């Protein structure tokens, strides 16, 4: 069963966090360690970090089909900071991994305990839709 774990933690206008360098390094080291562990267990499908919200664009098609881009978002909008796709035996295992990612160290090495949204990934559209 494939699941996506999403860090929807950032708000509009957010750039690189202004944490002390050693705290950022500890956070990144934790993430590298987590990805390595998931890879060794054969559970990691992919993991990506996204560029910061200040570079995000919203695109709609105009009437002529051309893209119209906009970079203005509501202040309350939550942005995806990064995600993992994992292939695990049960939802419980997906929740365990999400909890581990949730507890990644933040400023001063204190666990962030950030919320991680967990969603199952569909294997494809229903056959009658193809």
């Amino acid at each position, binding site marked *: 069963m494939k699941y*996506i*774990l*999403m860090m929807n933690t950032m708000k509009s206008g957010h750039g690189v966090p202004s944490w002390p360098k050693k705290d950022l390094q500890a956070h*990144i080291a934790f*993430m*590298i360690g987590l*990805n*390595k562990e998931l*890879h060794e267990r054969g559970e*990691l499908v*992919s*993991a*990506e*970090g*996204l*560029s910061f919200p200040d*570079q*995000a*664009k*919203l*695109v*709609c*098609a*105009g009437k002529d*089909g*051309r*893209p*119209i*881009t*906009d970079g203005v978002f509501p202040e309350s*909008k939550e*942005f*995806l900071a*990064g995600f993992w*796709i994992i292939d695990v035996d049960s*939802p419980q295992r997906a*929740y*365990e991994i*999400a*909890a*581990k*990612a*949730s*507890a990644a160290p933040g400023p001063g090495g204190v*666990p962030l*305990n*950030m*919320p*991680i*949204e*967990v*969603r*199952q*990934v*569909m294997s*494809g*559209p229903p056959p009658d*839709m*193809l």
Partner: protein
Amino acid sequence: MKYILLMSGTRAGVEAYHASPKQDINAHMAVLHRINQDLAESGEFVATQRLTEPKEAKVVRGEKNGLPVTDGIFPESKEFLLGYWIVDVPNAERAYAIAGRISAASVNMPIEVRQFATYEAKSR
């Protein structure tokens, strides 16, 4: 340059979509399928995924003891990720053009476009 194109919607929006005529859903799926084929042919396709319904989403936090705490209650206004495309393109304008095409196929829904962070903070 890799970009992710994110399609999001609310729970009410997803329910309205499922209540629409089957032929409209089929036509929508056919256009998305065509876009995927075109991206594969141009070598720009990396991945696409659709997620299960928002009603099956959970939010997880680590407790102090490291155990997961799950919750399935979200604000009604929350936009859920419905699916995404990852594309590998020469510039941002090309990513916007693809997002525009997906938007046009999907009742002009806004598509969020984000570049992948380039630092290698990961191990595969």
